[in-house]
């Protein structure tokens, strides 16, 4: 019954806040190694969908399977499941009272019981990858927005996740810092990790996405490869949306 090949299988996902119905039945499969980019007008439910995937929001209805396990079931240890899919937030949400290195190592040390020396070493190699190893002992308040978001991505990577969810990772950044974050994300996409990314960066979407879904009024209005979506949009609302932002 459950598609075993899909890493994430979502069926009939609904979410409402009181009378406000944000998601109205979303069905989708996300496969390993896929880079799924979610686009859509604001308020269409794309962020809520992303937050439902790791249960930061509890779905009102529907089921989400991660590697065949229904994570919406009450018996599931959601904390264990969440360790497989890290999240990168719009506002970074680094821990301001911890150094950059501690931000990266606290989860592996406390949750994966990695020895401190090993966690430190691994964190440093991840920081080196994004060119921030000299900031290891700085505090988040000493970093620029772009650096903070790169650290946030590193924090996610330090947990060796199967997938990373990006919730508008560049929306809170100064325009000049968007590039450095997208660069890191492109490199990640090429490394083969599964990514689900809510973004308004259409250039990034076109270049990196393996699949693009367009959200409108709480449902998936269109879904396809970047070429299909950008060059030959079928849905009139998607056409309207693209004409406004491209």
């Amino acid at each position, binding site marked *: 019954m459950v598609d075993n090949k899909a890493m994430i299988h979502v069926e009939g996902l609904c979410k409402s806040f009181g009378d406000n119905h944000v998601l109205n039945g979303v069905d989708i499969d996300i496969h390993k190694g896929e880079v799924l980019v979610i686009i859509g007008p604001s308020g269409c439910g794309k962020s809520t969908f992303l937050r439902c995937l790791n249960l930061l929001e509890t779905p009102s209805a529907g089921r989400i399977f991660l590697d065949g396990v229904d994570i919406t079931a009450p018996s599931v240890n959601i904390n264990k499941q969440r360790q497989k899919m890290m999240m990168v937030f719009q506002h970074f949400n680094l821990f301001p009272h911890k150094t950059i290195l501690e931000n990266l190592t606290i989860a592996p040390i*406390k949750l994966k019981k990695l020895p401190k020396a090993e966690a430190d070493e691994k964190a440093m190699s991840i920081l080196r990858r994004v060119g921030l190893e000299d900031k290891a002992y700085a505090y988040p308040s000493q970093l620029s927005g772009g650096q903070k978001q790169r650290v946030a991505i590193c924090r996610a990577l330090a947990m060796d996740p199967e997938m990373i969810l990006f919730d508008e990772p560049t929306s809170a950044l100064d325009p000049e810092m968007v590039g450095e974050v997208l660069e890191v994300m492109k490199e990640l996409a090429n490394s083969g990790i599964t990514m689900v990314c809510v973004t308004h960066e259409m250039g990034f979407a076109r270049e990196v996405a393996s699949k693009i879904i367009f959200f409108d009024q709480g449902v998936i209005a269109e879904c396809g490869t970047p070429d299909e979506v950008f060059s030959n949009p079928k849905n009139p609302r998607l056409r309207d949306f693209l004409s406004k932002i491209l």
Partner: protein
Amino acid sequence: MRKRLLNKKYAYYIAAIAVLLIVFAVVGFAAEGAASADTGFFAEFKAKLINNFVKEDRWKYLTSGLLNTLIISFFAVIIGVVLGFIIAILRSACDMLDKKNIFTKTLNGILKAYLTVIRGTPALIQLLIIYYVIFTSPNVSKLFVAVISFGLNSSAYIAEIVRSGIMSIDKGQFEAGRSLGFTYAQTMWHFILPQAFKNILPALGNEFIVLIKETSIAGYIGINELTRGGDFIRSRTYEAFLPLIAVAVIYLVIVMILTKLVDMMERRLKTDGR
């Protein structure tokens, strides 16, 4: 440079105490000196000092009183902080995790009622009720009763201080912790409370100061704490001025030391690199 700054700080404390003593001394002796103008001012002062503090080892009323005050305050603070944090964390959890659940609703209701009762009645009445109504056995130590009473009283105020600190932390911090795979409790412990604690430290220091001074009502159940010690000297010597001033100065010094400690802690916790 650093040494000079240090000296400046000490100078501030010494000056504060000196000013207080001088003000009280001038006012007091101007009033009392008029009555016995035949003896010298300093001879009179010395005689009064000896009469109030040296004779019959009367200073011991103050030191033993101070000891009791410190014991009550110290253990009451511990109870207040532990209980206060627990109440605040439980209440925040009730608010954040599951609002509709019957269990969390009931728990939140009970905690709210506790806070209302404790904060809505005078500490003295609470002390008397605990002493005369709850612990009626003569075998129960009065100090123990006072510690429990002031601890419970303080816990209600600390609970709300801590809760305000928890609420002051950005929701994103919670989401970051949870999304990494930490449980609610782990997120609280590693990320929320350390940041909240830093924010509420001034308010906590305030509460400790109030608590120390409030223990002066412990004399009502017959504990020889600092205030009562001073009052006892007064009842023996029929002189109000020196014993009460001495008591006031001792409270002042304790509070200043405490303020200093809280200040130092605040500076140590400034880890955001600024």
